């Protein structure tokens, strides 16, 4: 990494202490959070005690000697923002991967939060064509929502698909611990869709030091704020994978001898993640930042500290799993939730949407009970049989991620399934909607 040395920068060459992720040295006049270059590697001030300054080295401290050169930058981490960002990919430090310079204004990353009274209530529906999302968990601009998925689920594919269908002005990809293959996959899909000029990428691949990842989401969100605030654009930010980001947090906190909390994550995990996710916002002037993230699970366990804290922060989650009955990946209606959906469903979509959605999920729950019964070797009632049949149809025609239809068609499909398997009183939706939309035959 190259950075030019300017006159006011102070240079030191005597390290007092070295750990796996940090170095300490005596230095004066240093600001908290300030950046430094230690032996050519980017570092940030994380602690000052008198004249003892501790720096966290993003690339790790391997090979750093006690006489390494330390140059303080006199400023916190920043990114140059401008229209020039569009269509380009950057590393974790905000340097273009293909080389060259960015024309733009320098901004501190991890800046202040939006005054809540200057926000607008999100109200714009983001149709994706995927019924597991649009029908049951409708997304709204300004929302923040992760996919919860085991590592073997095709979350990056689904995310790319959603991003392209979302009609965003800009898509900002923050890759943390992304495999090179997945990075190239994203590039390819966006290229094929002719969308590359709407994309900005900040990428840390598995080939790079994990601690570098800590900069990636802040870089991406700083770029997002530029487009959303200054250009009033609808920006979609993709954060993948936040579990790997959290791992980097835990590496740093463990090396700094902080008391770990649950699952060896730092006690501040909630605040650390919330700070990022809360950058999702709808501005009154039309600009917005919507965040779709990925939180990989281990064995579907959502009680692990990372998905657990995430769930408490985000506005719902989209849970992907394979439905072995129909052999497809579905958006699980029980574990998934979009908390902002009520701002649009039945308002921006047909009036009966909420009731149809709830009824279908309830019937799917009945099917789940019937299935348990069946597995325990009990006889099934006629209703059980019918709900099981319904569940198969529901899973295949609506929950599967390969569905691509508009919401009216989703509602029609739901009524078709209701009609095929149930009587209106078994479905339990408002009589007026039954009269109006339920086509009986």
């Amino acid at each position, binding site marked *: 990494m190259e950075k030019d040395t300017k006159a006011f920068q102070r240079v030191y060459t005597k390290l007092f202490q070295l750990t796996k992720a940090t170095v300490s040295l005596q230095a004066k006049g240093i600001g908290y959070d300030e950046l430094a270059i230690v032996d050519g590697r980017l570092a940030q001030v994380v602690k*000052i*005690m008198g004249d003892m300054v501790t720096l966290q080295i993003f690339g790790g401290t391997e090979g750093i000697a006690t006489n390494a050169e330390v140059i303080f930058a006199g400023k916190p981490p920043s990114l140059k923002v401008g229209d020039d960002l569009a269509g380009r990919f950057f590393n974790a430090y905000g340097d273009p991967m293909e080389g060259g310079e960015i024309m733009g204004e320098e901004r501190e990353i991890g800046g202040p939060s*939006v005054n809540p009274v*200057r926000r607008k209530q999100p109200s714009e529906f983001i149709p994706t064509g995927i019924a597991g999302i649009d029908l049951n968990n409708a997304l709204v601009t300004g929302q923040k929502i992760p996919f919860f998925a085991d590592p073997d689920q095709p979350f990056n594919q689904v995310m790319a698909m959603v991003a392209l269908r979302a009609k965003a002005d800009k898509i900002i990809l923050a890759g943390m611990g992304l495999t090179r293959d997945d990075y190239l996959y994203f590039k390819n899909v966006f290229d094929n869709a002719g969308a590359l000029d709407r994309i900005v990428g900040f990428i840390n691949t598995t080939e790079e030091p994990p601690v570098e990842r800590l900069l990636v989401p802040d870089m991406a969100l700083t770029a997002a704020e530029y487009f959303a*605030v200054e250009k009033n654009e609808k920006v979609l930010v993709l954060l993948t994978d936040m579990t790997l980001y959290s791992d980097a947090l835990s590496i740093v906190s463990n090396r700094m001898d902080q008391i770990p*909390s649950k699952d060896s994550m730092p006690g501040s995990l909630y605040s650390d993640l919330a700070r990022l996710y809360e950058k999702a916002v709808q501005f009154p002037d039309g600009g917005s930042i919507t965040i779709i993230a990925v939180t990989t699970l281990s064995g579907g366990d959502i009680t692990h500290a990372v998905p657990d804290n995430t*769930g408490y*922060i985000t*506005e719902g989650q989209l849970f992907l799993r394979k439905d072995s009955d129909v052999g497809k990946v579905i958006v699980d209606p029980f574990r998934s939730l979009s908390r902002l959906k009520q701002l649009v469903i039945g308002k921006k979509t047909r009036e009966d949407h909420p009731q149809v959605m709830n009824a279908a999920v309830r019937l799917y729950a009945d099917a789940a009970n019937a299935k348990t019964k069946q597995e325990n070797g009990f006889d099934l009632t006629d209703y059980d049989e019918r709900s099981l049949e319904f569940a198969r149809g529901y899973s295949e025609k609506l929950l599967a991620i390969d569905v691509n239809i508009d919401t009216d068609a989703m509602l029609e499909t739901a009524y078709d399934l209701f009609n095929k398997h149930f009587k209106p009183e078994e479905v339990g939706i408002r009589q007026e909607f039954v009269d109006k939309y339920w086509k009986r035959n």
Partner: protein
Amino acid sequence: MNTIGKVSGIIANLVIVETEGTTAQNEICFIKHGDTRLMAEVIKVVGNKSYIQVFESTRGLKVGTEVEFMGHMLEVTLGPGILSKNYDGLQNDLHKMEGVFLKRGQYTEAIDVDKKYEYKVLAKEGDQVVAGSWLAEVKENWMPHKIMVPFTFKGEYTVKSIKGDGEYAPKEVIAVLTDQEGKEHKVTMVQRWPVKVPIRAYTDKPRPFKILETGIRVMDTLNPIAEGGTGFIPGPFGSGKTVLQHNLSKNAEADLVIIAACGERANEVVEVFTEFPELDDPRTGRKLMERTTIIANTSNMPVAAREASVYTAMTIAEYYRAMGLKILLLADSTSRWAQALREMSNRMEELPGPDGFPMDLSAIIANFYARAGFVYLPDGDTGSITFIGTVSPAGGNLKEPVTESTKKVARCFYALSQDRADSKRYPAIDPIDSYSKYLEYPEIAEYLNKTIDENWTSSVFKAKDILLRGKEAYEQINILGDDGVPLDYHIRYWKSELIDFVILQQDAFDKIDASSSLDRQYFMLHRTLGITEREFHFDSFEEIGPYFKRVINALKQMNYSNYESDEFHKNQKELDKILGEQEEAKSEEESVEA
């Protein structure tokens, strides 16, 4: 002279300051960073080192920076103009802040000092008064806002002079009081009070003896909260804590609602900002926002101010309680406050208690809940703060320090269950695990039986019993299979489902069903219990579910229609018809037997 110190250490928002002079625990100080002043609070003192938690980002802060100690604790401003405001955790008026982004070091006036209020005098010269005595009232929104003798005044005072009716601004002197030594004290409409100290301007705090109507059936009917009572809502993420609190803030029959959004989502606060000015208060017909004040420390706002936010909210509640009002205080989520304490305690390298929380967490929570309550005021009036907090247990597991500490002090426990939320049985309050200790208070039982119906509490226990027996029957059916149990088990299970669907479940997003009056709750409980008392005749278990689903459907349609409306009665007729079928079946059976 204020004590001055210099920054000697920085770890995130924990700053160490070396001073020559005196500093005090919880004293407020300001760090002079460039041309901004960053507010902070002393949380520990060792020798000449004061440990302070900064309520702002410390980015760029340097060792050697000057710090000024203010000689007082964190205080709020109390006076007319608090209602309908949106504050941050330190009571800055968010509307007065400039720009889209919150700028560090920007502090704004909590009340509108230039606004003139219509003022009516209540006391007269020569009156003997004490802290909290009402001197005058001004109109705030629609509400008479009492101007009181400042809570900091100790002992008795005599009103020497007081302004007559008129229009005055908050900071004008409206009265002069003389203390027992004959010293004069000027009083304005505004006073300041340290948030961590309870306001004790009351003469007595009895056990709560009335209930606070919330409009939520599963609370009012099954586990009512007392006016001046305490309750908490633990639940995993997405189980409905916030929706339930919002619903409470819309429908509960409180005079004022104070919402502390503590470390949660900004969009949820925006929802309140956006909707409350439009929504009608069902009781006064005015806009809901007029009775609501929001203290917002959302999760992206400075962590240290999170702790302050709940205290700020409580202090404002206590101020209005002293005016003889019925306050509902809601905090979402108290776990975020506890986590803020944990972050700080870890940074100070204190010996951690369970899960890394500070050792005194239980005591802190207990002291906070103890500030709620029903009180008698110096002038004989009454006021109350009903407090309901949410708890966000890690992994949804209730065996964790915040839930356990809260359970020791809060009298109502509204446990949200993941299973119920997953199957969309909202509000997902678990009917078996949840409780209201107030039901065991003889004075509450008496109140309920007097105001609702003489057999009310026994009906409630009957309903609870049916739910429990239904659950047992369900477990048996699951073990032995549908046809492995007598028909009666199925009937018992479906009777509990009836109560579940009709009484427990309530659609927070339906205009009509969202809130149910006590009359209506009485009617529905009676109607539903009436059905559970009937004899049913079925030939096979397969008939039972479908039949009860029709009964449930008819009752649910009643819940969805305006009480006593034509539609309501129509659905009721439908219900009678369905119930009539059983009568026919029964008489047919009997005639065959005869």
